[in-house]
């Protein structure tokens, strides 16, 4: 039986990818941010998961306004890192796990989560930056990856509650897969940030830290945060945080917090990071 053993929450700021790719991680601006992920890379290399499900959002890369799936699951053999306008990141090809991905798709659809199945999709910094933060700069990513792309660009994104319940459905799907696989799930994006218009640069560490506290120990309360509160308190792009709830929903009600890191700023954004393990 496959099982989800741990969850990772992690921001996916594009400038972090640039800093890694250009060897700037030791610069004074970046060093405090990357220091907080040293422990995470050790944890990841010790965990040796068989598969990573990465919940992220596409930033007008694979999807445009032509098609806006609310939830899209990558079922392909592999996913090419995208050229987002300044050349593709120099990172390995993302190998998929089509067998488990298709199983999850069938299972959650029959569980009444009507997600979109994607057989061809380039992946942007939303997916590759968290992989870089957790895995460093290997020649190949340490495990296959199943991308789960959530619309958070076109308002409204799915509710936090919907995301949380999808996480639970993914957990049931993984548990019904008849191979022994140890699966880690990433919820990415956030934390507070606003990239647009006159209020750009908004950061709200009180909201962010309370969000992390509650996500760990009382996630049901987080599922009730209305969209307008994310927009107002965490900034118009801070609403990406609903994706962390997919990850949390896929874990046990009680989890062990292995690691936590918070840093301001990465470019325009507050970076938050959690590693949570199921207690067993």
């Amino acid at each position, binding site marked *: 039986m496959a099982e989800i053993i741990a969850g990772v929450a992690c921001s996916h700021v*594009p*400038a972090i990818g640039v800093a890694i790719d250009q060897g700037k991680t030791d610069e004074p601006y970046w060093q405090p941010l990357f220091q907080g992920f040293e422990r995470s890379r050790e944890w990841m290399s010790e965990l040796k998961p068989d598969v990573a499900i990465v919940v992220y959002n596409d*930033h*007008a*890369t694979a999807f*445009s*306004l*032509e098609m806006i799936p609310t939830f899209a699951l990558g079922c392909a053999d592999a996913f090419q890192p995208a*050229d*987002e*306008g*300044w050349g593709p990141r120099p990172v390995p090809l993302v190998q998929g796990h089509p067998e488990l991905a298709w199983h999850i798709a069938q299972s959650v659809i029959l569980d009444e989560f009507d997600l979109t199945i994607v057989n061809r999709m380039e992946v942007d910094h939303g997916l590759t930056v968290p992989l870089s933060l957790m895995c460093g700069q290997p020649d190949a990513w340490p495990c296959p990856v199943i991308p789960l792309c959530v619309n958070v*660009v*076109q*308002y*409204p994104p799915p509710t936090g509650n919907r995301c949380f319940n999808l996480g639970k459905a993914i957990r049931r799907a993984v548990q019904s897969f008849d191979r022994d696989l140890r699966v880690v799930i990433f919820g990415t994006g956030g934390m*507070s940030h*606003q*990239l*647009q*218009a*006159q*209020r*750009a*640069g*908004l*950061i*709200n*560490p*009180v*909201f962010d830290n309370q969000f992390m506290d509650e996500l760990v120990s009382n996630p049901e309360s987080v599922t009730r945060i*209305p*969209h*307008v509160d994310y*927009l*107002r*308190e965490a900034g*118009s*792009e801070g609403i990406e945080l609903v994706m962390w709830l997919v990850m949390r929903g896929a874990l046990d009600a009680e989890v062990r917090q292995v690691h936590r890191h918070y840093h*301001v*700023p990465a*470019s*325009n954004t*507050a970076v938050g990071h959690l590693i949570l393990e199921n207690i067993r």
Partner: protein
Amino acid sequence: MNQKHPYDDIPGTYVFDAEQSRKGYHLNMFCMSLRHRDNRDAFGADEAAYLDRYPMSPEQRAAVLARDWNGMLRLGGNIYYTSKLAAKDGITFQELAARMTGVSDEDYRNMMLAGGRPIEGNRYTWEWDNG
């Protein structure tokens, strides 16, 4: 005051909702096209001619040509799309943010290093109107 959406009283923010998306479709799809180098080159060679491919409003067209970043957002642009135009111009996301907020790159960068724009005083439009 009659408020149409619960988020209308957030200052300095354009929520990319259905109305904005309908209004900005062609503007955003123009920006999307700049993801590809050959399109960036074609746009760079003759901006006005390239824009003829996209049935935008005269206001949207003028905002693009003038690089009126907030104007584009007001007219239905989405930041993840308009940032592709900025990238084509060699402007980073942080420099773009500085322009939209009307401060110098250095002042914006220093604001972020000091912890960003605080939430206090920036939740409601009335907090700005009185300032």
